């Protein structure tokens, strides 16, 4: 993961400025994108993450040129491309359905973009060979596209989109049609291809785990807006608002009072009356009453002491760890995740009283 200073020096490859995209007219218009601004850096693996219908595909299609923005600008290395048709944009797409040309062979599919760019026969031949090698499909160049498996079709779609050497590669949920094992394999492959080709990837997924493991940076989207942009670590550990905290991984929400705030650190008083330190997003002005989040793995259940206390409601064994569901004294639920040690039970049973020890620096104050 690049350090922040390093990342700042990188050029911006794609920038969306105050993009609005409305479908339909008048009162039944749907705002698929509502004032979206984001800057994607050169050579970055950038992920658009959000639930179905939040506008990910629409944003990708605006960058590819299949749709035009209602308002706003799209810049590619500083030039506004929002008005250019797709065939004039040095950007390629891997479609969710792959969209391989059924009347062409695997090689002809991969060659298509190069042919349209008017490259020489020799160049096309060597480039196609190199691309097929990159995706491990050297042997299957002469196959028809209905004679290959789903995973192979995925690779061909990738090779076809990478062959013309685009400045940016757009991938719309490319792995969602693959089974679990193949998906895990392709996640690693995609990362490898991105670092080998040095091309900026904009990757769309609704799978938070996929986003966390693959991305350099993630933009979390909901209802046509971008809620937070940051590294996987930022998104997971410093969620800006309730939606992000809830969408990414499991988390505990607590209401607390902000007692003190200085720089990006605050002291909050929990419902139990105990005070703990918490981090605050930059430039945020917490109200007196605030919601804080604590990840289950950043807290421990203890027999005595702790900043919160309650009763054990359920104990779920997961092999690597155990989840202990505790009902706090103020009635709200709290889950603790503890790593399992060999031949040692977590020590709690349903009905037991339990204290909760929150790790230092584990609490984050949310926006809103």
């Amino acid at each position, binding site marked *: 993961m690049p350090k922040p200073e390093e990342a700042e020096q990188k050029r911006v490859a794609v920038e969306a400025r105050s993009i609005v995209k409305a479908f339909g007219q008048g009162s039944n218009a749907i705002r698929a994108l509502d004032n979206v601004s984001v800057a994607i850096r050169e050579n970055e693996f950038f992920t658009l993450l959000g639930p179905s219908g939040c506008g990910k595909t629409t944003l990708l299609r605006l960058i590819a040129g299949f749709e035009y923005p209602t308002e706003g600008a799209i810049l590619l290395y500083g030039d506004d491309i929002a008005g250019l048709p797709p065939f004039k944009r040095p950007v390629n*797409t891997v479609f969710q359905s792959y969209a391989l040309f059924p009347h062409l062979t695997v090689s002809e599919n991969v060659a298509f973009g190069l042919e349209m760019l008017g490259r020489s026969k020799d160049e096309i031949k060597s480039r196609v060979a190199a691309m097929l090698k990159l995706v491990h499909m050297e042997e299957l160049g002469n196959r028809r596209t209905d004679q290959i498996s789903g995973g192979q079709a995925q690779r061909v779609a990738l090779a076809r989109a990478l062959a013309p050497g685009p400045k940016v590669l757009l991938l719309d949920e490319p792995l969602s049609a693959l089974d679990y094992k193949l998906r895990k394999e392709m996640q690693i492959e995609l990362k490898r291809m991105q670092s080998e080709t040095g091309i900026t990837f904009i990757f769309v997924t609704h799978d938070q785990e996929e986003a966390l493991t693959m991305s350099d940076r993630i933009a979390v989207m909901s209802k046509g807006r971008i809620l937070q942009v940051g590294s996987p670590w930022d998104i997971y550990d410093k969620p800006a608002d309730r939606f992000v905290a809830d969408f990414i991984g499991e988390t505990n929400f607590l209401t607390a009072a902000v007692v003190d705030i200085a720089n990006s650190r605050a002291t909050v008083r929990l419902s139990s009356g105990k005070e703990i330190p918490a981090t605050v997003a930059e430039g945020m002005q917490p109200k007196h009453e605030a919601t804080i989040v604590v990840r289950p793995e950043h807290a421990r259940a203890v027999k005595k002491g702790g900043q919160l206390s309650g009763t054990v409601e359920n104990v779920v064994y997961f092999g690597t760890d155990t989840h202990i569901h505790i009902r706090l004294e103020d009635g709200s639920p709290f889950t603790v995740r503890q790593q399992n040690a060999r031949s040692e039970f977590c020590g709690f049973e349903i009905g037991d009283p339990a204290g909760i020890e929150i790790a230092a620096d584990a609490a984050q104050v949310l926006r809103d």
Partner: protein
Amino acid sequence: MVRRRFEIRTQPGFAFLALVTFFMLYLPIAVLVVYAFNASDSITIWGGLSLHWFRVAWNNSAVQDAAWRSLIIAVFAATFATITATMAALATTRTPPYPGLTFKYAFINQPLMVPEIVTAVALLIVFSRVKVWTGYSGLGYLIAAHTAFCIPFAYLPIRARLESMDLTLERAAADLYATPWMAFKRITLPLLRPGIIAGFMLAFVISLDDVVITEFVKSGGQDTLPTYMLGQIRRTVTPEVNAIATAFLALSVILVTAFFFINRQKN
């Protein structure tokens, strides 16, 4: 108790009715075909098996002339109709729905709904004026008229094919730097080919078969095979007509079978 689903196939009398229907449909045709191979001069008295009447028809210069004219008209009309229908199908499927689109569908398919005799009379009136103005009285009128009523037949299979085609493929082509023309030439057209061939063949058969409009529009000495046969039957009826009809039938069966075969190969 097992309740049986209502199935029309198992209703009493259904099989009988079906048989009678097929019988009534195909018996006359069978008789016609059989008598085409009749050796005698009569169309009702069987005189033994022979290809005599096929030979007579084949060597009849009036039949040759009419057959050629039919083919020329059908080839030109089907070609023009297919080109027009392809453009119409692209224009009506490769656009988001808008008010008035349904009206356009109806307009394109209009020749299917307007009684043929009405079109025939209308064309007769218009073309007779045009003939006076221009002095031209060639095959152009027949080709134009046939093109017009062939368009909906060519349009239907082409539109069906376009509608079942994944739009993403054209988008993918554009994404890979294909201009709209190149995307059409390299992706849409090859994938559309079965639909276009089917449309062409349907139009071809429809044109070959037409009597009413042709009868009204043709100038003197412009008989097509069907109008020639009609003229023959009005005078003396010989098994020659059976032979021509049988050859005609064979050609149509071949074309229509090929049409179904190509359509089946869709994906």
